[in-house]
């Protein structure tokens, strides 16, 4: 719930606006396939985690003892994924799908001058020119943003994908 005191309200609105901006920029950069700008939104020591479903109701909670789809504990993992599709040697990127990222229901859970934590809902429309088909992925984000010298960066992102019967290929640009 929003705190109704004017100062607190201003801070909440500011945090929500920052979160909205960073997430919208992330989606925009992915849609434009501007990978460098996308990578630059992440802190070098970020965590990027896509857990999977353990059963009908619960996703995996411990990446050290349970399976995840993606678990990177630094930006290096994301950089490697970009490097891979840039080699033009992966059929998954020949051609790349066109995407539209939509992020909504952004809620700030906690905020300070240095950190903003929150959740959001996401939907990616995904058009594959290879087969002329549009599909979509959707789910929830949990995120932590950090205020750095270079601006607000994504320090932690957990992507919960709604489905547990996946398509043949799924990568960062479709999440």
């Amino acid at each position, binding site marked *: 719930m929003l705190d109704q005191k004017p100062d607190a309200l201003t801070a909440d609105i500011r945090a929500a606006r920052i979160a909205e901006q960073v997430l919208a920029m992330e989606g925009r950069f992915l849609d434009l396939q501007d990978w460098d700008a996308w990578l630059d939104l992440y802190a070098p020591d970020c965590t990027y985690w896509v857990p999977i479903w353990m059963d009908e109701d619960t996703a995996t909670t411990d990446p050290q*003892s349970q399976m995840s789809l993606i678990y990177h504990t630094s930006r290096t993992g994301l950089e490697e994924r970009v490097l*891979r599709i840039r080699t033009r040697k992966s*059929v998954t990127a020949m051609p790349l799908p066109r995407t539209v990222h939509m992020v909504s229901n952004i809620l700030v859970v906690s905020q300070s001058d240095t950190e903003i934590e929150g959740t959001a809902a996401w939907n990616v429309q995904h058009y594959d020119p290879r087969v002329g088909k549009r599909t979509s992925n959707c789910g929830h984000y949990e995120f932590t943003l950090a205020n750095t010298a270079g601006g607000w960066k994504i320090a932690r992102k957990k992507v919960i994908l709604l489905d547990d019967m996946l*398509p043949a*290929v799924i990568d960062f640009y479709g999440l």
Partner: protein
Amino acid sequence: MNQRVRGAGSVVPLREKLEMVRGMIRDEADSGKFHVDRKIFTDTEIFDLEMRYVFEGTWNFIGLESQIPNPDDYVTAHIGRHPVILQRDHDGEIHCFYNTCRHRGAVLCPYKQGNKRVHVCRYHAWSYDSSGNCVAVSQAEDGQYHDSFDKADWPLMRIARLESYRGFIFGSLTDDVPPLKDHLGGAAKFLDLAADQGPQGVEYVPGEVAYTFDGNWKLQFENGLDFYHFAATHASYMEVMKHREKTGTMAPGKTYEGAGVDEATGTYSYVHGHAMMYAIRKQGRVHVRPIAKDPAVLDEIRDRAGEDQLKWILRQRNLTVFPNMQLVDISAMQLRTWRPLSPGKTEMRTHCLAPIGEAPETRALRIRNYEDFFNPTGLGASDDNLMYEYVQYGYEAGDAGDTSGYLRGLGEGALAEDPFAKELNHPTADWKYGPVTFGDESVFHAGYREWLRLIERGLSRDAEAEEVAHA
């Protein structure tokens, strides 16, 4: 075409169909030829025959004993088109039932896994205990059943055969299969090489990754034995590896091979369609295996299972247990099963396989290695999955004539004798051996021979039965 075959009326079409299927696999390996008709990847009639006579006509892998360790644990699965429940009963015995209510057919248990002493059907609340007995018919007294009705006559239906080898559970919908051990033949050796990795055997790392690809199941079957595709299909993965070496984010490769062993790849083929390929690498991309993280673990395996067994545990091995399971041991171990949904769509269920009781740091390394390569999100398997879709697309050109994808390895071999026959205690295996760039394709033949044998057997029997019925 051939619509008549589906009905009961005519005897001739089943015989015709048998001839058609025989023409689909042209096995002249002795003279250097082996051809598989493109239609077996796209044709719906062939698909129906496969489901009925291949998947529902032989042993299928259905799960691990360690998935259901406790009384009343269960997991659900499919054998061919049939949903089943693999259930440990209250006394610890394992059963496999068709997952369907005896009252009016509702799927009894729609969950993937769980623990239930009694399954209550959601439709009219008939109840079955974990041994499969029907223990309650709701409102039975008021149901005006005939005197002859007895709920004891309505237990869950068991599949025809259920056996386990080293914790790997297999089931068959038909009785007409050899004992599991005979069915597995030499392939059992490679299940041993998985099971022997821990003193208490192996388990799944929690969390199944399930996905579909728009291609025929046999594309996965072939790919899991195909060393030839690696350099081309996984070129982008190799680039990432190079980058890791250059930037020092990956530990340098390490070999476990002795000085007298050459780099090589090779294959073994067995009865009933099973086959395996191996790679012996000494430089370049040699995986740092999780199992070798702690030298004490290697010592324990050596003491328990022997030096030769350890040597083979550390080699890259891809096993196919026909018709529905592959076990891959590279930088991590994957056990995958498939379920054909249509000629052009296949469902995969995949797990990271690991020694029970493994140290937490080793387990974490294994999981990271696994995620790196496997899964639709992995840097390797996603390329494979997409290639199956591209091959399926290409096979739609059904009139384009023979393919030549089953011919490597049909010429003269590099060696006169299998160099590993003794190490593997494997005297009768059908083997091929060559350099890392060998890419044997004759390793697929056993699967196609078994495929044909099962369909021929099923069709001949059905044809005979029809002939008797119409005589």
